[in-house]
């Protein structure tokens, strides 16, 4: 095509688009740090990483294209919540992989790769200090690496990696928190290329953390990140597993470092995902799985047919309870402090 048109979102402030995002999302502290804006910014000016979203020098460098506003899940924010619609729900444990709970996120990804449903998947790996890093999975063998599976309670630049992936691959999968899943849907509605994301695996999520703040907090508890083998949040407790034992404390203690953007999020179960996975609703060592889309159903059926996982019943009640709880503790608009 030689001539084409661009649809621009409506501005709410007489500023460049990033200025609008700043006024509407970042300053009011409802930004979820999903990193969609950083992913889409054509001049790569928007920064994410382990710090709040920013665009140093945006007055000069922002090209005012509006892409960041188009993909932001918190622009014109209407919170999603509940268990959402699903085709089937079960509790399962992969027989092939080890992960946070039943490694079903990993199992879905491996099977999607093996079935040729996706060419690659974006995962979040960690280093010795538990800093996050995205990895591109093209071979299920990579998923044997325990630093690649498992939960990291720190933000990760997943969507920038997803964006790079869709430029080269026609079928991509990724794993993300509910805000990332919602952001991806907005990206898909705004820019056709993101239809190449064929499988969006959502994680149950109450909150996430900045790595620096979490490690500082744990340091005060006498825990060095490099000694940590696993972190988990179960029944209101933050659990840190180390080689020489376990440290447990109430999640409430972390309240001061829960990012404000998480505190207006009501989507626990990632309602817009193709498949949502979490630990709530299952016994230890199993993952709760909500199969929501046809593609996810195809993968679940393949896992079943090949006997790759052990299946049990999941507790819908337990999941519902957490969904309701999240809506309750995260009102939107946020309650004024004091």
């Amino acid at each position, binding site marked *: *095509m*030689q*001539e*084409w*048109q*661009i*649809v*621009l979102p409506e501005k709410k402030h007489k500023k460049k688009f990033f200025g609008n995002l700043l006024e509407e999302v970042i300053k009011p502290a409802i930004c979820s740090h999903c990193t969609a804006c950083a992913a*889409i910014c*054509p*001049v790569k000016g928007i920064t994410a990483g382990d710090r709040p979203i920013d665009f140093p020098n945006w007055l000069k460098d922002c*090209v005012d*294209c*509006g*892409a960041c506003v188009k993909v932001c899940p918190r622009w014109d924010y209407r919170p999603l919540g509940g268990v959402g619609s699903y085709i089937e729900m079960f509790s399962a444990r992969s027989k092939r992989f080890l992960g946070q709970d039943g490694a079903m996120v990993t199992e879905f990804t491996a099977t999607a790769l093996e079935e040729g449903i996706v060419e690659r998947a974006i995962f979040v790996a960690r280093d010795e200090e538990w800093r996050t890093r995205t990895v591109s999975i093209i071979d299920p063998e990579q998923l044997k690496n325990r630093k690649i599976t498992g939960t990291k309670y720190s933000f990760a630049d997943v969507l920038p990696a997803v964006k790079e992936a869709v*430029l080269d691959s026609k079928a991509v999968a990724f794993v993300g928190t509910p805000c990332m899943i919602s952001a991806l849907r907005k990206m898909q509605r705004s*820019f*056709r*290329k*993101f239809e190449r994301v064929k499988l969006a695996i959502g994680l149950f999520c109450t909150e996430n953390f900045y790595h620096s703040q979490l490690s500082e907090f744990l340091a005060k508890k006498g825990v060095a990140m490099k000694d940590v083998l696993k972190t988990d949040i179960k029944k209101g407790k933050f659990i840190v597993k180390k080689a020489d034992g376990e440290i447990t404390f109430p999640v409430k203690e972390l309240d001061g470092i829960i990012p404000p953007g998480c505190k207006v999020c009501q989507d626990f179960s990632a309602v817009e995902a193709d498949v949502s996975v979490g630990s709530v609703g299952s016994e230890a060592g199993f993952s709760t799985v909500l199969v929501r889309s046809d593609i996810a159903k195809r993968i679940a059926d393949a896992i079943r047919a090949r006997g790759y996982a052990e299946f049990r019943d999941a507790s819908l009640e337990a999941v519902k309870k957490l969904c309701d709880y999240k809506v309750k503790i995260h009102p939107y608009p946020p309650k004024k402090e004091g």
Partner: protein
Amino acid sequence: MKVEFKARRLDLLRMHLDVIREAFKQAVAPDRVTVEYPRERKKYPANFRGIIVFDKDKCISCFRCAHICPANAIQMTFYEKAWPGIDYTKCIFCHFCVDSCPTGALRSTKIHDIAFATMGEMKLNAVQMLKAPELTREDSFTVEYVVDSQGWRLEKKAEIDELALEQFIIPEKRRVSVCVDPESCLGCRLCVELCPNDAISVDRKANKLNILPEKCTGCGICVRNCPMKVLELKEVK
């Protein structure tokens, strides 16, 4: 027995005569395979890869030559625009630069035999490349190998081959940038900013982008830099 011997003697005699005739011939008008350079020069084909000349009026400063050079021998320097200079201490005469130039601003000559006094002199800037280097020519003949049913031979003509070529024109397949996925366009207008030929226009009121095929040189800068890879070079008739 006797008859056989006679026949052999005749053969031997013939062979000796052949050798003597050949010896005479080579003494008077010898055959040869070598070229008597520099008194004569071999005729080079039109696509010979020699010293490169530069046409500043055609250059659009797209940097393609500098980017493609595998020996990193091309340095862009700013004059009226950014123009290429070639460092002949590095150049490997692959002529990727000539082939990649979308406007034919770089072209080859048949000159390969120039001497530089110092390494420094081998670094030519765009201005020095505007004309073919001057040669003192000592040749008055052009030779050419001819291969036919009688074998091959060297043919010598009393003429001088023109070494500074007119542009060697390959029938052009013109390609222009086309938006193949407008629904993924971010509207960032980086392509508009980067186009060295102002071939992409933007209508800020109607939010429309437009590629003007008659202005597009097919240099591909916009294609390479599009953050969503929605542009491609497509052949035009």
